[in-house]
């Protein structure tokens, strides 16, 4: 039997008066890749931030391997949305990836040569070794995304949260990233990914979580990735257009 890595119970969160998450409950099993899908503003990023203690929760409980986030954080990797940092900051790609090792290196210690090698290996995995000493401000959006993923790889975590790692990347970067995710999965790691492209969900993910303020459906992709679930999650202003086996969602709002 597969054991649950994440338990989320009755979680809710808000920004000022705005409640953006309500009664969110779900469990995630070890060794799975889950897509978190939902319209813009559904609270996907907020869900991840709240689970990781970056945003305060109103009610509810989140546990990892039966422990609190605090006890488990060494085993958790987080790839934030690319726009969340200042890419003008004076540092290079290798240095950013090395940050993934800071937890292991320990505070107030200088990264060793070995640490730099580990970081370099992570960059290599993402096909970015030739950009190791490139200023991060001089990387393209897709390359920045690869650097973020390399940092997460360097962290060598058991559980990964990724907020839209495929946003704005080209086909080859998308392939590279998905290959890495599949590899993580085959190594028994657990991955949660905020994802926007519904067409690729069945191909890339074995589980889907439909979120729009609350969980609309959650389970194995084959079972829950249905027209009905998509339509209810994305709301009335969305129209389902079936084109053969392609999944196309069109907005009917103007």
């Amino acid at each position, binding site marked *: 039997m597969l054991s649950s890595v994440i338990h989320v119970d009755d979680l809710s969160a808000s920004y000022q008066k705005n409640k953006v998450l309500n009664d969110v409950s779900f469990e995630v099993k070890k060794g799975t890749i889950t897509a978190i899908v939902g319209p813009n503003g559904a609270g996907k990023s907020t869900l991840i931030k709240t689970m990781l203690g970056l945003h305060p929760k109103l009610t509810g409980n989140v546990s990892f391997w039966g422990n609190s986030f605090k006890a488990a954080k060494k085993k958790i*990797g*987080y790839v934030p949305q690319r726009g969340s940092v200042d890419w003008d900051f004076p540092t290079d790609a290798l240095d950013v990836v090395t*940050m993934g090792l800071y937890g292991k290196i320990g505070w107030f210690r200088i990264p060793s040569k070995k640490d730099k090698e580990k970081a370099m290996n992570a960059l290599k995995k993402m096909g970015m070794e030739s950009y190791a000493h490139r200023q991060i401000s001089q990387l393209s959006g897709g390359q920045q995304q690869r650097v973020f993923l390399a940092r997460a790889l360097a962290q060598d975590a058991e559980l990964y949260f990724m907020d839209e790692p495929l946003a704005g990347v080209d086909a080859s970067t998308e392939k590279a990233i998905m290959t890495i995710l599949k590899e993580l999965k085959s190594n028994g790691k657990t991955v949660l990914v905020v994802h926007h492209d519904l067409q690729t969900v069945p191909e890339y993910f074995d589980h889907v979580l439909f979120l729009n303020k609350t969980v609309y459906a959650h389970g194995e992709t084959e079972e829950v990735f249905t027209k009905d679930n998509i339509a209810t999650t994305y709301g009335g202003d969305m129209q389902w257009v079936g084109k053969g086996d392609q999944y196309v969602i069109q907005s009917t709002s103007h």
Partner: protein
Amino acid sequence: MLSNLLHINTLWVMASTMILGIAAGGIGCLAYWKRQNLMSDALSHAALPGVVVAFLIIQEKNLLLLVIGAALSALLGAFFIQWFTSASRITEDTAMGMTLSVFYGVGVMLLAIANRSPGGNQSGLNNFIYGQAAAMVRSDVITMVVLAAIVIFIIFIAFKEWKLFLFDPDFAKGIGLSIRGMNVLYTIVLVTTIVIGIQAVGVILMAAMLIIPAVSARYWTHSFKMMILLSSVIGGLSGAFGTWVSSTGSGLPTGPFIVLTSAAVFTISLFFGKEHGIVIRYIQFKMQQRSSRLDHQQVMTGKGGRSQ
């Protein structure tokens, strides 16, 4: 001039403004990447009432106690800014602008009162406005050097922690760095640097000691570590040089000369800086243009020049 330079007291004072400049240059980089340049200006102005109140209470000019008063009132200012921003619709820069002017106004008013009190006129409190390094006595210098050394130590010991905290605080928190702790430490070192500097540089110009070296350094390097080092060097040299110049005339304020020195360094950096300096950028662009023109011509002639 030379004899002046060799005067032992001048050397002492120069050494202290130099170490102050080093600390301010380093902290300035942190403030720069926290995008809080105006904050240092607000905090230094907010320090003034604290200095005067401390003097009115103890009735003598003991720098350590005045500095503690300054720190308390700067922190009060920081608290107001924080509180206004989170509890009302006022934006942060508005809150800073208001705090800056109100605290400074109160400070100047209290200063007028203090100057009327017996002994107040000779107290040298006015120096806190424009800065007068020469007014510092031996114990002032020691206070300043010790505190600045602590600040420098804190910046340099935690290089990678500052970097992570400034670049990606969410990620930092995820791997166990306390963001609240770093924020507290940052505020403490920032306020400490400001308050130890105000006697020598003055509350009006203190923020320039933090901001100008940092932006100047930005033109020379792409590495955070180098930026802090360079900014510290620029700050230290400006501190020493500005002090020396101001000591050549009697009663010249120190602050303006320090700021002018670093502004000169900034101007040079702006034009000739290796990274995005105006002249360098222009030259690089022209070279690119010429080489691609040459390429273009080669392609054309290779084709037999028909398209001409």
